[in-house]
C-alpha cells in the first residue's frame, strides 16, 4: 500500500470539500474494493475520505411507498432490517447474499453502487426496481445511473447520500454466484411494479442491463413459462474462465425464470 492522506469528515459538506482538496482523492465507504486494490498496489489515491462518521448517510427509512436507505448502510444492516423485509423483502435477501459475513458487515450500498462492479448485486436491485439515487447534488434515476463497466453518472466529488426504492407489487432477486468470489456470475432482479414489469440482469454483462423482451412478455403473462424461450444475445456479455458469454446468456434466462417464480 502506498501512502495517502486520511480524512474523516463529520458531514457530507466536509467530505465534499476534502474530496475536492486532493489530486486523486477517493471516498472510502466500506472499502471492500478499494482497500484490497490499494494493498495490492493497484490503486494509489492521494487522499481517502472516510465517510463512516457521517451520521446523515446511515439508516433505513420505510414508508408505505417504499424505502430510503442511507448510502453508508452496511449490507448486514439491510439484510437484517425488519423494515426492509416488510417493505421489499427482495432487497433484504439480495443484501444477505452479498459476499461473505465480513463483506456484509463492512460493505455499504452506496459504495457498491458508486463502484458499479459488473458483478455486484445491488445494481440489479436499483435497475430492477427503478430506484432513485440521491446524491449531495441531485437525484438520479436508476435508469440513468449505470453507464458502463465501473462507470456511473456520478461526477467528480459527487457523493451518494441515499437510495430510494419504490415498493413494488412483488419482486425477487436470484443469482448464480461466482464460485470463487461469490459475486454474481449472473443475477436477475425481477419486479412487478405499478409502472410495469422490470427485469435487470447483473454479472452477465459489462454493466447491469434491463431485458426488455422479458419485461414485455411478463407484462402480458407474469409467469416463468412466459420467458422460458427468451434468450439474451451472448454478444458483448462477459466471458472468462468461470463462464463464457454463451453460458452467462443462458443463465440470464434461468435466473429470470427462477426470480419470477420466487416473486412475492
Amino acid at each position: 500500500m502506498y501512502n495517502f492522506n486520511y480524512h474523516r469528515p463529520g458531514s457530507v459538506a466536509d467530505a465534499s470539500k476534502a474530496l475536492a482538496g486532493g489530486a486523486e482523492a477517493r471516498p472510502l465507504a466500506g472499502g471492500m474494493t478499494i482497500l484490497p486494490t490499494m494493498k495490492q498496489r493497484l490503486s494509489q489515491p492521494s487522499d481517502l475520505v472516510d465517510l463512516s462518521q457521517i451520521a446523515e448517510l446511515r439508516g433505513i427509512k420505510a414508508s408505505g411507498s417504499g424505502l430510503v436507505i442511507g448510502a453508508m448502510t452496511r449490507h448486514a444492516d439491510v439484510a437484517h432490517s425488519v423494515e426492509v423485509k416488510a417493505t421489499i423483502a427482495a432487497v433484504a435477501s439480495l443484501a444477505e447474499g452479498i459476499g461473505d459475513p465480513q463483506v456484509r458487515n463492512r460493505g455499504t450500498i452506496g459504495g457498491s453502487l458508486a463502484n458499479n462492479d459488473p458483478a455486484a448485486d445491488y445494481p440489479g436491485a436499483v435497475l430492477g426496481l427503478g430506484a432513485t439515487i440521491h446524491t449531495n447534488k441531485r437525484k438520479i434515476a436508476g435508469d440513468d445511473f449505470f453507464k458502463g463497466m465501473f462507470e456511473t453518472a456520478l461526477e467528480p466529488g459527487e457523493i451518494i447520500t441515499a437510495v430510494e426504492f419504490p415498493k413494488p407489487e412483488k419482486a425477487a432477486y436470484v443469482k448464480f454466484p461466482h464460485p470463487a468470489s461469490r459475486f454474481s456470475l449472473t443475477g436477475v432482479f425481477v419486479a412487478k411494479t405499478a409502472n410495469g414489469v422490470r427485469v435487470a440482469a447483473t454479472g452477465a454483462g459489462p454493466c447491469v442491463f434491463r431485458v426488455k423482451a422479458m419485461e414485455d412478455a411478463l407484462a402480458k403473462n407474469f409467469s416463468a413459462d412466459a420467458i422460458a424461450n427468451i434468450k439474451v444475445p451472448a454478444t458483448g456479455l462477459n466471458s472468462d474462465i468461470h463462464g463464457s458469454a454463451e453460458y452467462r446468456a443462458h443463465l440470464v434466462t434461468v435466473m429470470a425464470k427462477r426470480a419470477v417464480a420466487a416473486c412475492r
Partner: protein
Amino acid sequence: MSEKGIGSSVRRSEDQRFLTGKGHYVDDMNRPGQAHAAFVRSPHAHARVKMVDTSAARKAPGVIAIFTGSDVAADKLGGLICGWTVKDKNGDPHKAPAHPILAYDKVRYVGDHVAVVIAETQAQARDAAEKVDVDYEVLPANIDTAKAMKGAVVHDDAPGNLCYDWELGDRAAVDGIIKSAHHVTRIDLVNNRLIPNAIEPRAAIGEYDSGSGHYTCYSTSQNPHVLRLILCAFIMGVPEHKMRVISPDVGGGFGSKIFCYAEEVVCTWAAKKIDRPVKWTADRSESFLSDAHGRDHVTHAELAMDKEGKFLALKVETIANMGAYLSTFATCVPTYLYATLLAGQYTTPIIFANVKAVFTNTAPVDAYRGAGRPEATYVIERIVECAAREMKMDPVELRRRNFIKPDQFPYQTPVALQYDSGNYGQALDAALKMSDYSGFKSRQAEAAKRGKLRGIGVSAYIEACGIAPSAVVGSLGAGVGLWESAQIRLNPTGSCQILTGSHSHGQSHETTFAQVVHEHLGIPYDSIEVVHGDTALVPFGMGTYGSRSIAVGGSAIVRAADKIIEKGKKIAAHLLEASVDDITFKGGEYRVAGTDKVKTIGEIAFAAYVPHNYPAGVEPGLDETAFYDPANFTYPAGIHICEVEIDPDTGRTVIVNWTAIDDFGKVINPLIVEGQVHGGVAQGIGQALLEGCVYDNDSGQLVTGSYMDYCMPRADDLPSLKVGMTETPCPHNPLGVKGCGEAGAIAAPPAIINAITDALGVMHLDMPATPEKVWRIAQQNRPAAAAE
C-alpha cells in the same frame, strides 16, 4: 484404555493457543535490528534479463542493500537443488538445469526472483523494489503441459524441455496383452494443476551472529533439519553446527513447505552481508506465484480385461509438468510416488508406466497433499469406472472381482511395492452399507422428480505412506534417508518432553505424540510436552510429509520409550532390592513381579537425576534417543463413495452424500484422524469441483492469481461427511499405524468425477467440474440422461 491413551479422542492441546491468538508463527517474530526484504519478481513468463538497474532504488528512503543474481554468483552460492535423482529409460540421470537463487541471465516464470531490496521497513522495501528497473527481452512462453515438448526451450541443457523419459515395467509385454485382450478400456485425462494455499504464507527471518559465526534461519518449513542440510551443504557452504533452523508454529503446508525456496536462502545469506536480521513474509499474491504448485499431469491409460472383467494389464503414459525449475523433490512425485501405486487395490498382473517430465514457463511443481498418489488413484479409479460402464458391469462388483484378497498379503505388486496388509472387501462392504448404496436408485428417481440428475461414484484408493526404508529409497534415487528420530526426556520431578524430528503444521503432533508416551510410560498426559521444529533442540530428523509422522516418528517415540523403560528397570531393581528380571513395568509403575513393591516412573526419574542411592554402572539421567528406519512403507487404503445432484439448467453440482471408510491401521486419536479425513476430502472436493490453476497459454500470466479467481472450497461446498474405519494393523511398526493425512485428498477426486459422469451418463470430463462444463454436457446428453 486410559481416557488420554491410545484410542482416545483427546481434544487437541494446541487448539487453545491457536484459537486465542497465542501461537508463535514466523511473522510474529521480530529480531533486534531487523530489516525487511522485498523481492523484485519477473512480470514475464520467459525473458532474457538484459540489465538490472538498481540506481534509482538505492536512493529510495530506508534502503539498506539491493542484491541481484550477480551478487549471488559473486558469492558463489549454490543453486536450489532437487534431492531425488530419477534415471530415465536409458539409465541417464534427469536433466537438472541450474536453479539460481536470483535469476541473472533469464527469468523463466511469472514471479521468478530477479533481485531483493532490503530496507528499514517492509513498506520501504516494497516501494524501492518498484524502482528497480529491469530491462527484459521477452521470449515466447511455453505453458501447456501436453505441448511442452514442442514449445519454446526453457533450458538450453534440457532439449525438447524433457527432464526425463522414465519407464517402469515391460512395454512390449503389456502391449501384447492389450492387443489380444477381450476388451480394452482407454481414457485420456488431465490431473489439474493446483495451488496449495496454506493459510499461513511462507515467511523467513535470517540472522547472523558475527561474534560466533552462527546463522539462524526462522522458516515456515515442514522439515527444519532437511532445510538446514540443504542450506549448509548445497547452497551456502556453511558447516551445520553454524546453522540453526527454527520452524515454529506453522499454519499448514500440504507439501508446499517441504521445499527449500530462494527467499529463505536470500534472507539468511543477506543477514551476514548487512550484519542485520532480514525478514520476509509472502503476501498472498506472492504465494500464488511462487509456492510450488501441485499435480499437473496429462495422461493416456489403457486397461485390458478378459470377458469376466478380470484386469489383465494396465498401461499408463503421463506427461508431468515440472514447471520452470526442479523444486526440492519434484522428480520423485510423478515416478516413485505415482507409477508405483498404479496397481491400486487390484491384482492387475502386469503394468507399464511411462512418464515424461517436462519443463514449462510456470512455477515449479512439487509434492502437494498426496503427491503422486492422488494422480495414480485418479487414473485407476477413472479407468476402472469407465471399464465397468463399457463392460456393462456393476462398478462395485468389477472392483471386488479384482481386489487383492486378505489372504494374499503380503502382496507383491508388479510395480515394485509390496503391500503389507489390508482387507479391501471389508472396507467396501462397510462403505456400501453406510452409504445405503442399494437404495441409490430410489434416491435417484426421487431427485429426477425434482429435476435433478443424481449420480453415485466409488473410489477405492491405496496410498503408500511413511516412505521407507532408507536403503530402498536410496536405491531409487533419494538423496536422503527417510527414518525419524525421537528423544524422550524425563525431568527430575517426573514431567516429560518428547523431542521429535517430525514437524507439526496442523497434524496435531502435540496431542497424538503425548498420547503415545502417556500410554507407553504412564506419565500423566498433562505432564508431557512435545518439542519440535528447532535444529538446536531436537535430534536430526526428517520432518513431516507423506503421512509419515505417526508411522515413522511415532515409532521412533515408542523405541525411545522402550529404552526409558529398560533403563528404569535397572534403577527400580536397585531401589526395590530385586533382580532386573523380576521387574515388570505397566501403567507407569515398576513392580517386583507378584509383590506389592512398587516404584512409579516419577520416582525412578527423580532417582536417576539425584542418584544418591543408585545402581553401579548405570549412568545418571533418564533421557533416551531413538532413530527408527521402517521396514517398509505403510499402506492405508479405503473406499469413499460420493453422491451428487446436478442442476441441469445451471450445471451446478452439489455433493449430497459422502461416505468414507478408511483403514489406517491402529488409530491413536479417532477425533484427530476424522479431522484429517475431513480436511483431505475437502481438498479433494476442491480439486474435483473448484480449484484449477490457470496460466494464460500465450503470455504465461497467472490468471488465477487471487481468491477472486482461484476457487477454494468453503464450508458450504462440503456435505456432512460420514466417516468410518476398518482396521488391519500395520505388521511392521510397533504402533500398528499407517498414516491418515493424505487419504481424503487421494480418495475424493475420482469418487466425485465418477459420480458426476454417472449422473450425466458420460464417460469422462476433466477436473475441475465447473458449472459451465457440466451444463454443456447436461445439455448435450439431456435426452439420454432422461431416458435412463
